């Protein structure tokens, strides 16, 4: 036997592949640890990427691997779509990009489960067992249903002829349902954030809960039937369709303001479904990576929901915007006509003679790509001795950290960015709070109006400052569809216009003062 041949055999050994998987998931964990700090995060992300490369290579070493042409085709298509998309996406469009990437992950899980089912169905029908092959890399490190029985499958063919080991079926069905929900839910989330679909809730009204429940029950019933040994393709497709409809039905009624929470939740879902696929395929790398994502996504979802004073069940049950829009509208009626608008020149003077200015950025800054203009304005103000800082609400923009990413892009020093708890005590000694395209996160109704749907949500208390300038495109309510009382306060002036244009104009006026 030549050295090359024995080296090849060594590389294809099951235990070697298993070791590579262990290295891969160790790198995932280390990579996520790195993400804990802004300075180590880049390295952390790359560490995880290296882990991923190792996991993929290990899988391709599997001696049962075949269909190289198709593998190359799939990867080539994925690269051709994924790389340009990731390179070209604007920082402002990041939330929907994450939603889309999450969606395709969920879609992959659902498709894989479907093929698994088809494959089991066919092979069992033909009296052949594919359990040995389905166990990835022939990982029979442990005796048990997937290992011993798989190898001796023909002997046990009669006993197993009703289908794959029950637990494999359970996990596959779970992965298929959750993956399908995640795929469709993420696509809807993408559509809403990209404004292909309206950001306001689209709901079936009172029937919504019942419809969701029926869809869930149907999907589960189909799943149980499949686990019990039904081999109908139609049933499996029906289950996927029910889950798909459920994904649509759950996300469509959710108002845009809750969208970050939803994306995070779907991210956790995809992770869990990947872990389930891992159990079904007996693949440790899938189990560990999927489960870590499931756990982290759950924590993140909860953190976000807490920041908005929303409970996750309430978000999933829908109805953020429905009643809110009505109450907001009546609120608007009381206040109408007391809005004062200002000009860039006046705003510039107000800012120039302030000692302390706090900038409150929101989604409006992101859409207008105004972060660089904001940075220029800050420099102008600092040159005049004005103390400038930024107050960042945890859910400003449409994702936690969204504003930080944008402002970091514009070279705003990290220490000028204040989180809500640090920023709020500072407002009473602030001369001007400059609100740039932020709405719901500054709405005093969250503190003062118990009937408001956002009542109880922590806000940036900009109305504590001596005066407030709000840059906004129009008087339209924000993403949550709720009127903002702040705009009607006597100390507030409104500067209507695109955030970037308005900020640039203020900066231009400042430089002429």
């Amino acid at each position, binding site marked *: 036997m030549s050295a090359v041949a024995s080296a090849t055999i060594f590389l294809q050994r099951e235990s070697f592949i298993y070791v590579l998987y262990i290295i891969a998931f160790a790198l995932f*964990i280390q990579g*996520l*640890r*790195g*993400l*804990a*700090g802004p300075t*180590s995060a880049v390295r952390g*992300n790359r560490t*995880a*990427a290296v882990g*991923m490369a190792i*996991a*993929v290579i290990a*899988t*391709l070493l599997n001696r049962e691997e075949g*269909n190289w042409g198709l593998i190359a*085709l*799939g990867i080539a*298509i*994925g690269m051709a779509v994924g*790389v340009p*998309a*990731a*390179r070209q*996406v604007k*920082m402002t469009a*990041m939330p929907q990009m*994450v939603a889309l*990437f999450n969606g*395709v992950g969920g*879609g*992959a*899980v659902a498709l*894989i489960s479907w*093929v698994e089912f088809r*494959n089991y169905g*066919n092979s069992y029908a033909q009296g052949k067992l*594919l359990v040995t092959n389905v166990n990835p890399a022939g990982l029979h490190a*442990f005796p*048990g*249903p*997937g*290992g011993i029985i798989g190898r001796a499958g023909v002997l046990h063919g009669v006993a197993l002829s009703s289908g794959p080991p029950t*637990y494999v079926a359970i996990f596959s069905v779970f992965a298929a349902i959750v993956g399908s929900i995640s795929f469709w839910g993420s696509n809807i989330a993408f559509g809403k954030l990209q404004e292909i679909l309206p950001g306001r809730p689209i709901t079936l009204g009172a029937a919504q809960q019942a419809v969701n429940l029926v869809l869930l029950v149907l999907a589960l019933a189909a799943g149980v039937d499949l686990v019990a040994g039904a081999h109908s393709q139609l049933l499996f497709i029906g289950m996927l369709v029910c889950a798909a409809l459920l994904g649509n039905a759950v996300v469509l009624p959710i108002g845009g303001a809750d969208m970050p929470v939803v994306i995070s939740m779907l991210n956790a879902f995809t*992770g869990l479904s*990947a872990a389930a696929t891992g*159990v079904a395929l007996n693949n440790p790398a899938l189990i*560990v*990576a999927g*489960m870590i994502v499931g756990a982290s*996504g759950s924590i*993140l979802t909860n953190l*976000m929901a807490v920041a908005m004073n929303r409970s996750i069940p309430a978000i999933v049950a829908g109805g953020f915007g429905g009643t809110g829009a009505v109450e907001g509208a009546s609120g608007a009626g009381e206040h109408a006509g007391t809005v004062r608008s200002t000009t860039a020149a006046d705003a510039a003077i107000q800012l120039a003679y302030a000692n302390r200015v706090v900038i409150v950025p929101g989604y409006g800054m992101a859409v207008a790509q105004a972060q660089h203009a904001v940075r220029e304005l800050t420099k102008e103000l600092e040159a005049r001795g004005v103390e400038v800082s930024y107050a960042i609400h945890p859910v400003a923009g449409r994702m*936690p*950290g969204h504003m*930080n990413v944008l402002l970091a892009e514009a070279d705003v*020093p*990290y*220490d000028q960015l204040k989180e809500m708890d640090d920023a709020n005590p500072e407002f009473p000694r602030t001369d001007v709070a400059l609100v740039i395209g932020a709405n719901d996160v500054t709405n005093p109704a969250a503190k003062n109006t118990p009937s408001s749907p956002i009542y109880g949500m922590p806000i940036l208390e900009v109305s504590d400052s001596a005066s407030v300038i709000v840059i906004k495109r129009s008087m339209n309510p924000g993403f949550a569809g709720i009127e903002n009382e702040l705009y009607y306060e006597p100390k507030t002036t409104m500067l209507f216009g695109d955030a970037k244009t308005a900020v640039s104009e203020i900066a231009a006026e400042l430089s002429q003062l």
Partner: protein
Amino acid sequence: MILASTLTTNLAILVLAGFIGFVVISKVPNTLHTPLMSGTNAIHGIVLLGGLLLLGLAGLSAFSKVLLVIAVAFGTINIVGGFLVTDRMLEMFKSKPKPPSHDGEGKDAGAAHGGQDGK
């Protein structure tokens, strides 16, 4: 003697991985939540492996092959897109002054990060 079956071993891995996920992630500061979501999003692209493994099976029907090629393409988009986007986001934090509060994890990175503030 109690023999661990494939299932129980995998369940043990599942549970332990869940706890690791909770512990590791709980430490991430708010400001990094978007990159974190994006990074973990890339990691669940690991389902690509499932597609690769199943493509290795003999006797797949043409339809199964089509499904699997789509699954592999999806998984690849998830992975490369996720990591690249996360990298782009994080690059923006890289050349910034060190944030005021830091725990152990940040220290060595801070040192490796000397000549910053590039424009």
